[in-house]
């Protein structure tokens, strides 16, 4: 992935809550949109697509650890995150009120490889970017979509979730990409076709076999695994943004291990080593990964 992002350009700063709005899905899952105001030091401007931040309400130590959140949208002095309210960490975020201070460490991690979508030397057609997102994975793809558009790349988004309300950022994506380029799938059929989002993706790859394309995906492990199998079958390169429980987010705890292929040798009999999702990722080429 992009090298710049590997350099420790992150800062630990205090941001202030500008808004914290909630959505409840028919699947009864709850989501929050958190908008934070930053001062210059935190350089929101320098956030790259796919990067994330480690967040927690200031002076709150239960839960103890910060939570990783992908940047959804940024401008010079504010950033947005979309979080699904699951356990203690996101419940603590959900309690944040406008004006509350938040500890924000970021931007962290690498970024999606956009250049690769620019097409190889003398390629006739630019590859189309196929964005695949599930549930709370879609926020990680919004800035990517913006960048790809700027680069003049054709984009098609496959957005999946349990129900209509679980299609995080649907309206923003539709506005950005226009409805014809947004394909949705929900388990309850409340929006788009019923079932997994990988089904329409498969049909699409089937239909346009041979055409150059690049997959960018973020979502639950099962969705990413299915996506990588499709990528192999249709021989399309895929960049996957992974999740892992993280204690630090900046490379010091080695808790966020992901198995990556490596040359078989005395040091590495089984042909894989562990890399860190937080600093080596969160974006990995699907071909790099050794699915356990």
């Amino acid at each position, binding site marked *: 992935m992009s090298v710049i992002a590997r350099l*420790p*350009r*992150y*800062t*630990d700063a205090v941001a202030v809550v500008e808004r914290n709005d909630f959505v409840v899905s028919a699947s009864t899952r709850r989501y929050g949109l958190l908008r934070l105001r930053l001062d210059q030091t935190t350089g929101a401007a320098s956030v790259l697509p796919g990067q994330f931040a480690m967040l*927690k309400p200031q002076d709150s*130590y*239960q*839960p*103890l*650890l*910060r939570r990783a959140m992908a940047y959804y949208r940024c401008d010079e002095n504010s950033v947005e995150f979309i979080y699904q309210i699951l356990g203690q960490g996101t419940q603590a975020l959900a309690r944040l009120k406008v004006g509350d201070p938040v*500890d924000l*460490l970021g931007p962290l991690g690498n970024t999606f490889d956009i250049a690769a979508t620019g097409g190889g030397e003398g390629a006739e057609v630019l590859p189309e970017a196929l964005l695949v997102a599930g549930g709370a994975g879609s926020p990680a793809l919004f800035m990517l979509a913006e960048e790809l558009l700027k680069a003049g790349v054709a984009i098609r988004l496959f957005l999946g979730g349990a129900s209509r309300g679980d299609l995080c950022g649907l309206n923003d994506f539709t506005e950005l990409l226009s409805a014809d380029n947004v394909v949705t799938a929900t388990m309850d059929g409340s929006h788009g076709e019923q079932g997994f989002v990988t089904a329409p993706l498969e049909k699409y790859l089937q239909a346009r076999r041979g055409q150059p394309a690049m997959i960018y995906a973020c979502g639950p492990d099962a969705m990413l695994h299915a996506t990588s199998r499709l990528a192999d079958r249709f021989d399309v390169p895929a960049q996957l943004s992974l999740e*892992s*429980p*993280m*204690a*630090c987010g*900046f*490379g*010091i*705890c*080695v*808790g*966020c*291990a*992901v*198995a990556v292929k490596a040359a078989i040798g005395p*040091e*590495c009999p089984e042909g894989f*080593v*562990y890399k860190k999702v937080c600093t080596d990722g969160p974006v990995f080429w699907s071909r790099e990964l050794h699915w*356990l």
Partner: protein
Amino acid sequence: MDSLAIEIAGVRFNNPVWTASGTCGYGLDMAGLIDLNRLGGICTKGLSAKPLRGNAPWRIVETHGGMLNAIGLQNIGARAFVEDKLPELQKYYTRIIPNVFGYTVDEYIEAIRMLEDGDGIHAYELNISCPNVKAGGESFANDARQAAAVTEAVKRVASRPVIVKMSPNVTDIAAISRAVEAAGADALSLINTAVGMAIDIHTRRPRLANVTGGLSGPAIKPIAVRCVFQASRAVKIPLIGIGGIATVEDALEFIIAGASAVQVGTANFYDPAASMKIVDGLGGYCSQNGLANISALVGTVLMN
């Protein structure tokens, strides 16, 4: 701040605030967030003679006031540390303390020998809380004789001071501390993590791939303070306090209990600046209380 300059086993430290093994990588990984020159010392991620791949995920799970980890001692190996990390680390004005482990006494010695080749190493910290495969997989730290044996063997080959890191998972920490002191340890650091476990009630599987893991963080602080206090009553060699230290108040509590220095561990994850705040806080404490040097506070707990 000279009021914080201390000496342990003949080594001079900027201050008594170190980062704990496994919670600051090889040190450099924190350079993006804190000024390493302002740290008293850096205990590296545990190093072994051969590189280790580590455990499968999940490796960590958060618990109330702490976390469980089962990293599996993933590390690049002592040789690679000396060649790839040490040259860069040496540029900083702080003390470098490789944390060393093995599954047999010979593996400890092998790792130490590799590190002896490196320049700019100031002391070793022995992680004896790992299974002794030759002795039925029981941890060296759990048995006074085994703990003494590995200490003695390492002391024979180490040209630098040896700090032995104690485990809290024992019935009598004082007895094991005495045995390790008698075996020639220059100092003790305590505590390592407490063995714990968490189960995901939905999958009914242990949350850690390794089943059990090490509990760390503020949750274990009272156990750590007790261990430091008990060890201080049992041995004469200096103690380095570890366990849930996140604030200057925490550090002072350990120093008063008997610690000559402290290590910040899990706090580095959720408050990367914690060690810097503690250094500043200790300096302020000395000036406010007219202490010429922080060492005057070590072990000054008054008995009820």
